[in-house]
Structures are given as C-alpha cells and as structure tokens.
C-alpha cells in the first residue's frame, strides 16, 4: 500500500468516525425519534433505507452482470425505483407501519403471525429467513471481498477473511443498533461516489451519446457463447422468443438470455424487494406517512444513482476496456502462462518453471506486470494476451504500457478465475483501472459502507428470526437465553455466509441475490399483501400460500431451472437427468425463474383457499386493522 492510499484511508476513516460520532450523539436510533415524538429527517430516512437496500451485491454483482449482458439490465433499475421505492413507500409503507405498531410486531414473521393469529407462520417464516438469508449475506460479503482483492491485490481467501472480520467487528460493536444517521452518512458517501463514477465514465468515453455509440459499434465483439443464447449487443435487448418442444439444443438456446435477464434478474429482484423481511421492518421505524412521502423524493433519486449508474457503467466498461484502457506498468513477462487445470475449465493458476510439458501445453498465455509502486512478488497482475494487444516498452527507464483491447468479461479472466471469466470482478477492475487511485480507495470505502449497512440489517433479521421468532415462540418466554440465542443465530449466519463465499467464488453474487429475493417473493408476498389489504384472507389461506410458494420455488430451483439444478446437483443425483422437463414441454422452461411460476400459483392458492375456508373472527380482523383504520 503506498503513502497516498494510507493517507486517503486515514482521512476517510477519521471523517466518517467523527461524523458518525457526532450524528450518533445527537440523533441516536430511529426508535429514539419515535419515543420523543419527533420525525426522522426524510433525507436521513430515505438514505438509510437506500443504504440497507443497496449493497455491494447491486453495485459489484449486478454491475458485472450488466457488463456481460448489457444495458437491458436497466429494466431492473426501473423496477427498483418504481416498485422498490414508489410502490413500496407509497402503498405498503404506511399500512405496514400502522399494523406493526398496532399489533406490537417487531419482525416480519411476528407481524404476519399476529395478523393471521398463527404461531406456525412465525416459526416457518423465521426458518426460511434463517436458512436462506445467509445466501444473500454471502453475496454482499463476496462483493466486498472481490473489491478488496482487486484494489489491494491480495489472495481472494485473504480478502474474504479480512472483510468478514471487519463485518464481524462492526456487527458486534454496535452496527445492529440501526443508527439511522450513520446509515444515512454511508448512503450519502455512496451517492457522491457513484455520481463521480458515472460522470468520469461518460467523460472518458467522449460524452453521453458517443459512449453509447462506442458500445453499439462493438456488437460484433460479443463472445460466441453469449450470441448463442441470444445476446445481440450491449445496447440491445436479447433475442425474445419461446422454443418449441423438440427444438434442437442450439435453436432452443437462442432465447435463454432474454428469460434469464427478464425473469431472474429483472422480475426476481425487482419484485422480490417488496417481500424482503429487513426492509419491511424499516417501514415500522418511521413516524408517519408524511415521512414516507418525503422520503420518496430522495429514495427515487438515490436508487437511480446506485443501480442505474452501476448498470450503465458496467455496460460501458466494455467500451473503456476495449478502446481506452492503457495500463502504465512494469512488464514482468510477455508470455506468462496460467494453467486452467486438466479439464481446461478449472481455476487458473500460474505455471511454475518446472511444470510438466503437458501442463505448459494446455496453459493459456497472459502478460504479467506490476503497477508502479508495487514491488512484492505477490503483486503480479495478469491480463489475457490476444493478437490485438499492444505492448510498448518504456524508454529511458520510463514505465511500460499495455493496451489490452479486451471486452470486460475477457478482462476479468485472471489468476483464480476460470477461462469463462468472473463478472463479479469487472466493476472492481474497471474502477481500479479507469479511475484515479485515490478515487478507487474512496469508492472502496463507500462500497464497504454500503455492504456494512446491508449486512447489519441482514444479520439483525437473522438473529431475531432465531431468538424472537423461533426460540421465544417455542419456549414461551423472553429471557437472557433468547438474547444468547439471537447472538448465536448471528454467529451461525455469519459463519455460513463466509463458508459459502469461500466455496463458490465466481459469477455468484447476482445469482445468490436473485435466488433469495425470488424465494422471499414467492413465499411471503401473497401473504403480506393479503395481510395488509384483504380482510377476507384466512389463516389457512396464508399458510397454504407460504407453503406452496416456498415448496414450488424450491422444487423449481432444484429440479427444473437448469442453472440452479445443475449447480446444486440433487436432480442429477436422484434422477440421472439435468432437469425434469419432459420432452413434450418447451426447453425454455429450464431458464425460467422459479418466481415466474411459483408466485402466481402462490397468489392463486392464497385467494382460492381463503375463499373456501373459515374466516378469522370479525373481532380479530377488526383489531388487526384498527391501526390502519384509525387514520
């Protein structure tokens, strides 16, 4: 780490520490506001909601996916703003707040359990949260770790452990308090960081239209693997269609990308946000509808500046890497070899001098270099060598220059990833390469802030799921034991998230996030909407919808969706087939997200079963809606 980096980090930490301390002394927690009868400042409320909502997962993970799939990912930004902010704040926020306060519910499972008078709902929801939220937490932690790895150039495992330690320290030292001011401060830092990033990116590429045009002109460079599944360029939507049963694999695959992008990424995450347990609780901490109305202003702009910028910059990174990237460095080896393993698809590792001829024969050519100021042997960086690459040797002891002329996914291929590339590293590499070093450090800090605020609310939700929703419901008491169980729940969740992050590096952030969001939507959304807006919804209706949503979503992930079924491997082990799609059905079903099938079924089941079963007593329903009615 050079002197400049150290100075920037110290100044940043001192500033955040000072402002955080000042804010904490004066404003304390969201609950303090309510106790005092005052209102949280709307900007603070919106930024803190935004900082909980947006994390390294959205910026690093989905930004990398945009680099691969293109600007079509902006549909997710539209859903994030329209559904995640407008619909959520305007239509769901106030009923959730009123019902939560009226029923004295402090967690999502508790709210639903009290609304439907069912302990089963509370325990089942809490189990789903506790078992599956580590998946989402893992996505956020991996996003932070990939960035640390890229900026400080340390091994992935070391980056993961360092970040996990920071997270653990933050959560234990008080991150759980949900101090809105520090969350808002982190949100503000992210906002400034992202605005600088998008301005610099457009400026570097010659302006708004010129940058897009450069990307449009590159459509012939889309890798064959992507064109085969319907990629038509980074400024076009993928090819849309629905394969017929019996279509040849190549013909059937041409619509896959559209369905992956729209069903899994755009709808899975875009709709799934409505049923996120940790965001539902956020609404309970505001004072009134007025606070929510005002927060919509900042929320809408904030999300545009976060995911909108991440997806635009992610896509444009292709134009930057291909046209503009120049790496001033000290060349180490123009023919450095990386070994993809015996099957040609494993993790790339540097080939030692004494390696066998067989290993050298299958190795791929890279150029290795060091950045100025980095001297240690482990500071070697690698970039894929292609015929288009230009290498200029520095004269009179000056720096050498590499012009890789690669697209983003090819640029992401380096030690530790496979020849398929790793989308999770694209945004970190882009920021490290295209932005000044000091900005990279500030950006890292703002990303870590984003990750922290999201993670602290995730771990809080996991902990209370175990302590309050499961343990207290089973033992019927609140005691020191439940506090201990809450802490244990947090610890187990943290260890599970880190272990998964260690095992499954590469193209995982967006997938894990989408899986969790989709599962939440299928399982919880019909019950949440019914609970808030449909008095006729019955306990059996709610339980049926949650079970059908959860089981349907899980079944589809394990046995039908090719990506998840292949990754999990149960389908192959149990049935000997990659997916259970029958030959008379369209092969496109294999790329349809579980949400598309299980959410409508879960909704339908909620309605039909409710209409066929005994309603909750009129007095109970009246009591539940008392809070909402009394406006």
């Amino acid at each position, binding site marked *: 780490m050079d002197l400049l980096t150290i100075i920037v980090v110290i100044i940043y930490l001192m500033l955040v520490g000072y402002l955080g301390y000042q804010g904490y002394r004066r404003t304390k927690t969201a609950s303090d506001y309510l106790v005092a009868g005052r209102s949280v400042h709307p900007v603070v409320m919106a930024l803190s909601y935004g900082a909980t909502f947006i994390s390294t997962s959205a910026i690093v993970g989905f930004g990398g996916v945009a680099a691969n799939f293109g600007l079509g990912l902006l549909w997710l930004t539209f859903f994030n703003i329209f559904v995640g902010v407008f619909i959520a704040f305007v239509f769901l926020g106030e009923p959730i707040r009123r019902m939560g306060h009226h029923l004295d519910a402090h967690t999502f499972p508790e709210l639903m359990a009290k609304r439907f008078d069912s302990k089963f709902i509370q325990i089942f929801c809490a189990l789903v949260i506790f078992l599956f939220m580590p998946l989402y937490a893992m996505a956020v932690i991996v996003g932070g770790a990939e960035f640390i790895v890229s900026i400080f150039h340390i091994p992935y495992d070391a980056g993961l452990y360092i970040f996990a330690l920071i997270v653990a320290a933050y959560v234990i030292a008080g991150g759980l308090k949900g101090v809105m001011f520090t969350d808002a401060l982190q949100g503000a830092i992210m906002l400034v960081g992202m605005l600088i990033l998008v301005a610099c990116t457009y400026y570097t590429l010659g302006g708004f239209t010129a940058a897009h045009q450069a990307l449009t002109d590159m459509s012939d460079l889309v890798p064959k693997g992507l064109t085969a599944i319907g990629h038509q360029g980074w400024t076009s939507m993928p090819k849309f269609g629905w394969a017929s049963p019996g279509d040849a694999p190549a013909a059937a695959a041409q619509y896959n990308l559209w369905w992956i992008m729209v069903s899994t990424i755009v709808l899975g995450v875009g709709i799934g946000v409505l049923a996120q347990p940790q965001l539902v609780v956020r609404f309970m901490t505001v004072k009134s509808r007025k606070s929510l109305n005002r927060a919509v202003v900042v929320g809408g702009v904030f999300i*545009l500046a976060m995911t909108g910028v991440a997806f635009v910059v992610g896509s444009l990174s292709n134009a930057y890497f291909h046209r503009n990237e120049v790496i001033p460095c000290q060349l180490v080896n123009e023919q450095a070899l990386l070994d993809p393993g015996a099957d040609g698809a494993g993790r790339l590792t540097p080939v030692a001098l004494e390696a066998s001829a067989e290993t050298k024969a299958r190795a791929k050519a890279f150029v290795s270099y060091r950045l100025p100021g980095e001297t240690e042997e482990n500071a070697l960086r690698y970039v894929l060598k292609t015929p288009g690459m230009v290498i200029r040797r520095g004269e009179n002891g000056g720096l050498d220059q590499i012009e890789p002329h690669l697209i983003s996914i090819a640029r992401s291929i380096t030690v530790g990833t496979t020849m398929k590339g790793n989308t999770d590293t694209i945004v970190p590499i882009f920021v490290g390469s295209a932005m000044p070093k000091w900005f990279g450090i500030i950006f890292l800090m703002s990303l870590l802030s984003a990750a922290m605020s999201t993670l602290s609310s995730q771990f809080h939700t996991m902990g209370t799921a175990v302590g309050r929703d499961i343990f207290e419901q089973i033992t019927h008491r609140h005691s020191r034991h439940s506090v201990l169980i809450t802490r244990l729940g947090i610890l187990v969740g943290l260890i599970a998230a880190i272990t998964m992050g260690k095992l499954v590096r590469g193209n995982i952030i967006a997938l894990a996030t989408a899986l969790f969001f989709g599962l939440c939507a299928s399982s919880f959304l019909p019950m949440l909407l019914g609970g808030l807006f449909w008095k006729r919804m019955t306990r059996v209706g709610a339980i049926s919808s949650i079970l059908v949503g959860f089981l349907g979503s899980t079944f589809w992930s394990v046995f039908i969706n090719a990506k998840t079924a292949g990754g999990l491997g149960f389908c192959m082990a149990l049935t000997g087939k990659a997916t259970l799609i029958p030959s008379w059905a369209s092969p496109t079903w294999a790329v349809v997200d579980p949400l598309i099938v299980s959410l409508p079924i879960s909704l339908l089941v909620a309605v039909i079963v409710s209409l066929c079963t005994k309603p909750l007593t009129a007095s109970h329903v009246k009591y539940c809606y008392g809070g909402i009615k009394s406006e």
Partner: protein
Amino acid sequence: MWGIEDPGIVACYALCIAASVLCVVYGFINWNRGDVLVKKEDVDWAKEEKEEIEDAL
C-alpha cells in the same frame, strides 16, 4: 437515439429517469400531507424495539 439502437433500451433508460422524476414530483406534492399524532402504541413499539436491540448487544 442517444447512440442506442434498440428502442427497448432507450425506453427503459427513459423510464428509469421518468420513475425517479415521478418519485420527486410525488414527494414534493405530498410534502406536508399524511402527518399523524404519535400515539401511545407508537411510543411503546419504539421503546420495545430499542430495548430489544440493546438486549441483543
């Protein structure tokens, strides 16, 4: 338009900005609407939330 060939992408780019503008306009129009008195149940809720979080720490 804007260097982007596919009208679908132009539309979603514009819709993102339009959705943000909608949020801003809605928020400003309703800036002073929806104020309610804080009731005892709101304060009780907040007190319990605070205690629970402090317990957890």
